């Protein structure tokens, strides 16, 4: 197991190297090169020359790449152009906010999606099942930024039940220990801040979690339906096991594998969705940072953000593979 994890971690190196190479080449492959891209419409020959000198774009390409690579290896993505701050530092500072939001979304997606899929499978071809199938198909077709906007419009702006932007009310001060507001408010024994954080989490979490919920419900339904037809389920029932024990010990346990796979894959969707959701709710996480960087042409942030998220994505999938072995002892990782 340890060897497996180590090998998978080592696999990150070629992936990151390849990704950095692709991003590097892509910026330079375009007509006009990086200086034009950076300056946009303000590009004049003098300014292009100035930028080229400033960022070292006038050096030989190989030299540029090696210099770039040596910085990437030290996780140094340079300075953000608009924020004038170190990209890596900024991302690490904001990362807890994104994890908090993604975790809330995932809890919602799994907490509702798995039972929904389970119930739908048990009542195949009833209105419950049909409703769940239709809801999940509609769910995967909703653009996350539209859903976020509608939720914000209805529950925050119209009804005023929940806050519309940010992670905390501006008047509230919370000592930052971990930058996870939920944990920080517990450390500080600040009940008001905790409740406030939860309130702020609800709408973005709901928006971000809905699409994964739809997909998880669908996979759960399919997977449970398959298991329900297995001989061992019939045997377990035939020998007089209670419905609950059969469901938990035989059906759910065996149906869990595809569900875990899909949950792992959904992290990718969550991280992309965060870019849009955080934008709508002015959430101070990585997603909003990347989303904002697009318009400002802040390449250090975009490149750093993409690499950062690729690392997170690969690590989550590693955790999923390890979980396989825990859930299903038949699978040997090697």
């Amino acid at each position: 197991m340890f060897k497996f994890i180590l090998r998978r971690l080592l696999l990150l190196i070629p992936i990151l190297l390849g990704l950095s190479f692709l991003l590097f080449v892509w910026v330079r492959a375009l007509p006009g090169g990086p200086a034009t891209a950076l300056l946009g419409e303000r590009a004049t020959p003098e300014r292009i020359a100035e930028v080229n000198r400033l960022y070292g774009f006038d050096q030989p390409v190989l030299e540029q790449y090696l210099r770039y690579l040596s910085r990437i290896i030290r996780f140094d993505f340079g300075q953000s152009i608009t924020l004038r701050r170190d990209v890596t530092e900024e991302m690490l500072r904001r990362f807890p906010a994104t994890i908090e939001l993604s975790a809330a979304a995932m809890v919602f997606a799994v907490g509702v999606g798995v039972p929904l899929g389970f119930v739908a499978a048990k009542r195949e071809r009833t209105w419950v099942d049909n409703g769940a199938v239709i809801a999940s198909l509609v769910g995967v077709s909703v653009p996350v930024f539209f859903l976020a906007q509608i939720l914000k419009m209805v529950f925050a702006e119209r009804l005023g039940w929940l806050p519309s932007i940010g992670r905390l009310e501006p008047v509230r001060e919370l000592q930052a220990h971990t930058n996870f507001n939920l944990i920080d408010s517990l450390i500080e024994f600040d009940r008001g801040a905790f409740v406030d954080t939860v309130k702020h989490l609800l709408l973005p979490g709901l928006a971000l979690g809905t699409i994964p919920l739809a997909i998880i419900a669908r996979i759960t339904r399919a997977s449970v339906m398959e298991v329900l037809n297995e001989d061992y389920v019939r045997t377990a029932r035939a020998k007089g096991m209670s419905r609950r024990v059969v469901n938990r010990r035989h059906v759910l346990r065996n149906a869990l594998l595809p569900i875990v796979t899909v949950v792992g894959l959904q992290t990718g969707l969550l991280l992309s969705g965060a870019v849009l959701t955080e934008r709508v709710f002015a959430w101070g996480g990585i997603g909003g940072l990347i989303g904002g960087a697009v318009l400002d042409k802040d390449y250090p942030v975009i490149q750093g953000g993409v690499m950062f998220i690729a690392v997170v994505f690969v690590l989550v999938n590693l955790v999923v593979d390890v979980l396989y072995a825990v859930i299903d002892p038949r699978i040997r990782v090697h």
Partner: protein
Amino acid sequence: MATVQEHLQSLMGARAVESTGSSLGREAFRRLRANRIAVIGASIMLFFVVVAILAPWLAPHDPRVNTWFDQIRPASIPGPSGDHWFGLDESGRDELSRIIFGARSSLVIGIVSLAIGAVFGLLLGVLAGGLGGRIDALIMRVTDVLLAVPSLLLALSVAAVMGQSRTAVMVAVAVPNVPLFARLLRSSMLAERQKDYVSAAVSVGIPRRRLVLGHILPNSVGPMIVQGTLALATAVIDAAALSFLGLGSADPTVPEWGRMLANAQKYTNVAPHLAIFPGVVIMITALGFNLFGEALREALDPKLRR
């Protein structure tokens, strides 16, 4: 498989080999027509395509002209009315006409990005699945790298470099499709290679290139058709997402659903219709492709054949 048959026929005489016909395609079509979900999905797709093509004739007003600018105040943007079914937008343009023309952008971006993604994916997939060995390994490592980044973020990093333009969005939406198509095609080609007709073709001495391109490839593209339909749904949503973030066409008068939605954010209190209509339209379009894609998957799945 016609050529294998010809070969076998020339070897063994015509009566030895009887054609079974391409019943999978015909049966799939029959099953699609009987499937209510497929019919609904296909109708939505057809409606969307027709609206996009006939936009200049269907749109009640010019989507670029803000004739009714005098009716617009920051505090009041007229909602749906008899003359403007979907209301006016923040600069006094007819919202319905903008949505109808927006279908054009979406359709063009969807089709072009799908074509780019499919062509490059096909190329890489055929090379990997057909040649194997080192080339296969190299191509698979490249797809590993591309798949390590969530698709929208990959698209975003591609488009951000190219700046605001429709081409940028098309290329950006296409790039994440390339590794998907390449992998899919490669794996179905590998599965196909194990089949008896391939051994038969090899034994009668069909050259490798013809074997791969003429026999294995045509039998392996089924899953790609399904993936293509589903990719169109993603393309509509991802293109809208990019234009929501400010990428997309550099010309602000070109109606794009994503940008309309982004602009609507400033007016959610006075004019909720500006957010609701484009959002619902994106959703229904994506739903159409998703419904049809899922139904197609079921129809083509040999396991479900009865």
